[in-house]
């Protein structure tokens, strides 16, 4: 609490870790090809601006996202992860996002249980038409994770930021 009073940003999970000055979080965005990736392209074509912290990885479907991608991300380069897919019922592959949704919930709750702030792992449904929504989602996730401070849990030892 003291550190906060001094206007220093600390890691929410490990308050002893203080963010370096001008610290910017790295967020990994894993997007499904048909809805969210197309939606993020639309954000681009519409020139809607959003914070530059997100790094986007394209996968065919949200159901391709194995929970260990999220674990690995948080253990290496990321301070937070966003996974985005098609809205329920709109999956290009019929039912992929329904399976993915179950895995996401359990993964999120489990990571939260062992001490990660729940906002480190976020999910969204963004359709190919929702360019503005994608920008809003990224802005929100970035803002959330900025508040949480740097992630310093179980990082791989050879990871140097």
């Amino acid at each position: 609490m003291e550190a906060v009073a001094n206007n220093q940003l600390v890691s929410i999970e490990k308050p002893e870790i203080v963010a370096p000055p001008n610290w910017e979080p790295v967020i990994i965005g894993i997007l499904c090809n048909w809805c969210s990736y197309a939606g993020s392209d639309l954000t681009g074509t519409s020139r809607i601006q959003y914070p530059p912290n997100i790094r986007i990885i394209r996968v065919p479907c949200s159901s391709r996202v194995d929970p260990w991608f999220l674990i690995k991300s948080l253990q290496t380069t990321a301070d937070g992860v966003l996974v985005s897919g098609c809205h329920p019922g709109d999956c290009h592959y019929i039912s992929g996002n329904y399976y993915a949704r179950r895995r996401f919930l359990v993964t999120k709750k489990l990571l939260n249980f062992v001490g990660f702030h729940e906002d480190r792992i976020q999910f969204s449904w963004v359709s190919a038409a929702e360019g503005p929504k994608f920008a809003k989602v990224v802005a929100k996730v970035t803002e959330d994770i900025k508040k949480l401070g740097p992630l310093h849990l179980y990082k791989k030892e050879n990871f140097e930021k």
Partner: protein
Amino acid sequence: MNVEIFVTDKAGLQKFYEAIIARNETWAPVEKFGKFDFKRVSSLGECDPDSPIATTRSAKPLFFPRSAKIMKYTADSTGTRVKETDEDPFTAKRVILGMKHCDARSLQVLDKVYNWDYIDNDYQKRRQNTVVISTRCDKAETHCFCTSLDYDVENLDAMDVLIVNGTEGKVHITARTEKGDAFLKENLDPASCILHPVSDEELKKQYQAFAASFRLKMNYKEINEKLSKIFDSPEFEDVSANCISCNTCAFVCPTCHCFKISDERVKDTGVRYKSYDSCNNGYFTLMAGGHNPRPVKYRRWRQRALHKFVYYKERFGENLCVGCGKCAVSCPVNISIFEVVNQVASNEVV
């Protein structure tokens, strides 16, 4: 060397420990989740050096770490550069308290292999910089059989300082090596002790009581000989049937020293690790071409038993077993290596 025996009482011992902890980097058995394990300690309150319960895992990780970083490298377009790894936390000068005799003995066994064709400098450094203080057990546990093996438990010189609980609350402290002698001079306040003037009779008495408490007894020479002849014994299949190949025995064993080398890379930085491995692991012997000479449990079990009691003996003149019983204690299905080797050896090949 000339043996001096210091005699003190429980309180004096506590003071001795406190002095050690205050002056040295000290490792001692600490309880976590109901099991004891060697941990770095900063006060006597954290640990229990005289715990009658042996540590679940041996002191091996302090000399042969679970995952040692053997190098660190970066790779970019200008080339691959090996970077200095962080300082090895185990090569600092340190003291280990509360090591049982079997654990201490295991270091002598390991020394053989680490000084063999390749001299492992890190290991040597760790050994040289460590003072081992060992307390003799008062009583054997269920799976203990150290007295049945090829070393003299009573006159063991694997520890630098030996502590023995005598009668009437007396505690005997002896240096067993020169390093130990020097250490005692530095850390033990002679004022709190009586210098034992006479023979070490009391120690002998304690040892006899301790030796009498063993349930398991075997003739290791017979075992060595019989096992060397029964490579094809079908008995191995029987004794390995309830093994679940879980590797626990090798990981807790003080003498198992198999490892694997693997790289982990993030961004352009990689670390090369040397981590524990176990011959019970199904793909321990899997070769790059896909062939696996030990695809089934009994072959792996045979390797384990024979390596411990035949191969190592042939090469280094020692059993690769110190009779600590840690494997049997930790085995999820309560398999005891004592029973296994005896069972195999008792069924001679026709």
